């Protein structure tokens, strides 16, 4: 890594010197406005790259499944207790631990923060820990039950073990390290937070923590599914990933042998994440390493520890208490070692300090027994491969693109300078003018075709009401046209619909049908919906459930009839209606939030899908440009300029609000005869069989009256779920429209960038030809030798750029 970094710095510096040298020597060529602008862009990118290479940062993100002990792992690896370890919800924010000579904590002032924000210097680790836990995570955890909040973003600057002891990772001097402790997926249910986290994860090497307690037959499938979601939703880079199977100290004698368990898990993880090779899985006991490493501190073992005796004693006592099982397991059969540990435990009880030499030995054992040693070895090896991809390539990307654009433009101009007669120049001018028209027509045609294709595809996808299988028909059409890439988009939308069905609609419907207690439903919903929306939904669920008891069952619904003139009854029935509407509103809000989250989770898939589709069109155009512009290095110049300009034009998924649900309440005004009282009347009835007599009889009659009633019909629980499902299904059409707009907007901007690049480069050539004409007329033409010298210098700079490129993409 050290050599690679030095070589990169050296080559980049050479490239800068070469380019500056050429620019100074051939100032007439570099005076052209386009080339001058490209030189300026190169200069900015070059200076930025030089500065970034001076102190590059290697980022390690910890992600993981529920209760996998991510924060304990982070603390064990940095040698400090900073990340809150008590409960998952205490690690709900984004905690960045960055190597620095200063000790500082920065809590970003994100919008809506209900916790303290600002900067603190010179704070002890104990104070940092308490502050993060009690004054940031706790208020965040409490307040997000009431309203949606952005997650806290905390940066702690200070010493980190792998930087203080660079031998652990063979980290070259000057390379900074950053650990990013990210919340579990359970604490991230909204789009905004997911987006922030995705950005941090996809630039980092990922440590993925798994809980050993979940790998048994009963829980493994669930664990693997959660893992798949964690990695895919957070957009972890599967090429730069180590899995840590934490808490292996929980193993008992009846478990499968660890090697066998890990081998099985490797196959399963490889399959579920579609990895090319079996992944590295390190069995780990983070608690043991955490106690021992923090009792030593962040410095290398060759130096004197900075940890106070009190702190060390406290941590070691806790280690003996919490990790006695592991210590017993590894000292079994070695009486001497067992006694050695016992003596230390006794000394601690007697209040005697543990000296550095003894501590070093304890740490060595802890590293070996906890899996720490194996972990550092594995990360060291992997870092070597990941360093060019994760650190060097992103730094060099901008400067190499700018260089390529500049180099190809200069080369084009050099070719105009080789024209020796006015006739030759005039022929080329005519040729350029002709090609400008042809190229413009072709780009426009290709763009229109693409636009029509997208329009038609999306219109077809919206035909689900009349076509039983529109997606298949579209997929067939796409395949016939050779257009790959749309599959991800087709899958993503269907996946969102199905997720809403399974994760939101179904649990609510089931709870309503079985009259389940609200806490059971709440538990399920909290897995996918943020606490404030879940709270609203549960309130609405409770209220609607209580109100519907007073209704009678009726075909596919519930019915209640009340007299219009009974004010109390009308008020009651209106409250009933409101409760069901409130439930619908809460369901709609929860579904919208979840759909937004799911779309964000799949943003990479959708964006890649659309990008692949558009790239196919661009490749077509590039091939065409190469065919029609074989001379003057023109097509290369256009492509290089286009690529550089497109790097600023990234594709990001738009935000969407969706779902409209129909009004569930049907109110019918009806009239019916109702009893309003009774009256006594005398009726005359015959009695007797042979000698009939007619006698007066007093009878009671109901007094009936036609009155106005309000009949309220509410859907039954299955119909409710059908109506929610139909709301989602209808929204799909809106979503397709929105995606169509988004794709076309992106294609529009691509089209503009491409046209700009074409015009820019053709203008450059025309100016070059004009300049050459003047030179010929004034007999100022550069000598062949000078041109060859320029070309040769250009080539040597190109060689340096190629070497840099090969470093950047070596392992990509």
């Amino acid at each position, binding site marked *: 890594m050290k050599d690679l970094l030095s070589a990169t710095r050296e080559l980049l510096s050479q490239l800068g010197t070469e380019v500056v040298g050429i620019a100074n020597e051939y100032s007439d060529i570099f005076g052209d406005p386009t080339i001058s602008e490209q030189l300026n862009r190169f200069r900015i990118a070059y200076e930025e790259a030089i500065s970034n290479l001076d102190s590059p940062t290697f980022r390690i993100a910890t992600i993981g499944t529920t209760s996998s002990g991510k924060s304990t792992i982070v603390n064990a690896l940095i040698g400090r207790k900073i990340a809150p370890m008590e409960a998952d919800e205490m690690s709900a924010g984004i905690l960045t631990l960055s190597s620095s000579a200063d000790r500082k904590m920065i809590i970003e002032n994100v919008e809506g923060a209900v916790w303290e924000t600002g900067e603190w210097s010179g704070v002890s680790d104990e104070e940092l820990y308490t502050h993060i836990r009690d004054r940031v995570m706790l208020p965040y955890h409490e307040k997000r039950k009431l309203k949606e909040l952005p997650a806290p973003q905390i940066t702690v600057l200070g010493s980190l073990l792998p930087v203080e002891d660079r031998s652990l990772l063979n980290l070259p001097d000057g390379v900074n390290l950053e650990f990013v402790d990210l919340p579990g997926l359970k604490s991230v249910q909204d789009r905004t937070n997911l987006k922030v986290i995705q950005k941090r994860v996809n630039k980092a090497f990922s440590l993925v923590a798994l809980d050993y307690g979940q790998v048994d037959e009963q829980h493994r*499938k669930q664990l693997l599914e959660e893992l798949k979601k964690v990695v895919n939703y957070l957009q972890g880079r599967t090429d730069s990933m180590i899995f840590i199977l934490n808490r292996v100290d929980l193993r008992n004698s009846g478990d499968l042998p660890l090697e066998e368990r890990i081998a099985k898990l490797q196959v399963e993880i490889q*399959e*579920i994440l*579609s990895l090319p090779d079996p992944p590295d899985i390190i069995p780990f006991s983070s608690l043991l390493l955490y106690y021992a490493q923090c009792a030593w501190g962040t410095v290398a073992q060759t130096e004197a520890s900075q940890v106070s005796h009190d702190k060390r004693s406290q941590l070691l006592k806790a280690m003996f208490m919490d990790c006695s099982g592991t210590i017993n397991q590894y000292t079994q059969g070695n009486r001497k070692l067992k006694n050695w540990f016992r003596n230390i435990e006794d000394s601690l009880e007697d209040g005697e300090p543990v000296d550095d030499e003894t501590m070093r030995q304890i740490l060595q054992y802890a590293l070996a027994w906890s899996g720490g040693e194996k972990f550092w070895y594995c990360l060291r090896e992997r870092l070597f491969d990941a360093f060019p991809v994760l650190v060097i390539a992103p730094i060099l990307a901008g400067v190499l693109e700018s260089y390529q654009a500049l180099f190809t433009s200069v080369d084009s101009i050099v070719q105009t300078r080789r024209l020796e007669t006015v006739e030759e120049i005039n022929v080329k001018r005519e040729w350029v003018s002709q090609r400008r028209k042809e190229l413009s027509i072709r780009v426009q045609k290709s763009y229109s075709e693409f636009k029509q294709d997208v329009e038609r595809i999306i219109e077809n996808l919206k035909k*689900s009401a009349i076509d*039983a*299988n*529109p*997606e*298949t*028909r579209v*997929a*067939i059409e*796409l*395949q*016939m046209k050779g257009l*790959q*890439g749309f*599959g*991800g988009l087709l*899958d993503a939308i*269907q*996946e969102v*619909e*199905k*997720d809403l*069905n*399974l994760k939101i*609609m*179904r649990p609510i*419907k089931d709870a309503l049908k079985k009259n389940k207690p609200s806490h059971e439903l709440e538990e399920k919903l909290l897995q996918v919906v943020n606490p404030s929306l879940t709270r609203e939904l549960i309130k609405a669920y409770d209220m609607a459930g209580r109100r519907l008891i007073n209704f009678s069952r009726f075909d596919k619904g519930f019915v209640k009839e009340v007299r219009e003139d009974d004010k109390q009854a009308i008020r009651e029935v209106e409250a009933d209606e409101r409760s069901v509407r409130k439930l619908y509103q809460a369901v709609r809000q929860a579904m919208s939030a979840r759909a937004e989250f799911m779309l964000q989770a799949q943003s990479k898939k959708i964006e890649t899908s659309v990008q692949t589709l558009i790239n196919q069109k661009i490749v077509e155009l590039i091939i065409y440009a190469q065919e029609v512009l074989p001379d003057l290095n023109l097509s290369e110049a256009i492509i290089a300029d286009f690529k550089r300009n497109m790097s600023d034009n990234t594709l990001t998924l738009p935000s969407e609000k969706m779902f409209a649900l129909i009004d569930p309440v049907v109110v019918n005004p009806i009239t019916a005869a109702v009893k309003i009282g009774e009256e006594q009347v005398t009726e005359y009835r015959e009695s007797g069989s042979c000698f009939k007599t007619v006698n007066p009889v007093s009878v009671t009659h109901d007094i009936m009256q036609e009155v106005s009633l309000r009949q309220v019909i509410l859907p039954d629980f*299955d119909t409710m*779920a*059908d109506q*929610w*499902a*139909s709301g*989602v*299904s209808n929204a799909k059409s809106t979503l397709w429209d929105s995606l169509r707009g988004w794709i076309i907007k992106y294609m529009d901007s691509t089209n503009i960038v491409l046209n700009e690049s074409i015009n820019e480069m053709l203008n450059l050539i025309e100016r070059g030809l004009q300049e050459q004409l003047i030179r010929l007329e004034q007999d100022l033409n550069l000598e062949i030798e000078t041109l060859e010298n320029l070309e040769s210098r250009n080539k040597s700079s190109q060689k340096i750029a190629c070497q840099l490129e090969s470093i950047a993409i070596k392992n990509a």
Partner: protein
Amino acid sequence: MSNFDLGEIFENNVGKPLKKLFKYGDTDETSDPVKRSRVLLKSRDKNAPSINAPTSTLVLAIRVTSSNIIHFLQKGDYISEDLGEDLYQCTKFLWIGSQQDFNEQISSLFLPYNFGVQSTEESEYDVYLLRIQLRDYDEGFMPNISSNRRADAFLRLPEIGKLADISKRLAINSCENIGFYQC
């Protein structure tokens, strides 16, 4: 054809792994999938619909990008109550009909060697088909049903359905115009 035993190849590649997956009853060892399904139907419990029951056979199409579930099914691992949920999430389109309709319209897609329908140039739109024998009629698998009822039906699948066959990787156009509808 005489150089290799189709039946043996089918049995080794498809039949044996599938044997592990049947939730009730034993599988038939016959190599011809059509004959096999007939024998299989005879041996099923008395509640099974007759061969001509209109909805005895369910076919699910799963896009190749979700092939993980196919691998799980082929291995016979992870068959659990939530298989229905996984299948609901992965199914792109489906078909339901009588065994007779299946034999006439769909069964050729399940033949181990049917070069006309199998994907020769791999595409992201390719699919695998799963044949599931249903014990009970379930309207949730019918066309034009709400997605809520469809999800319910899939969740009942571990109780009422029995996985009978998995096709080879098929080109999407082989599933055109034979009555599949969106899941």
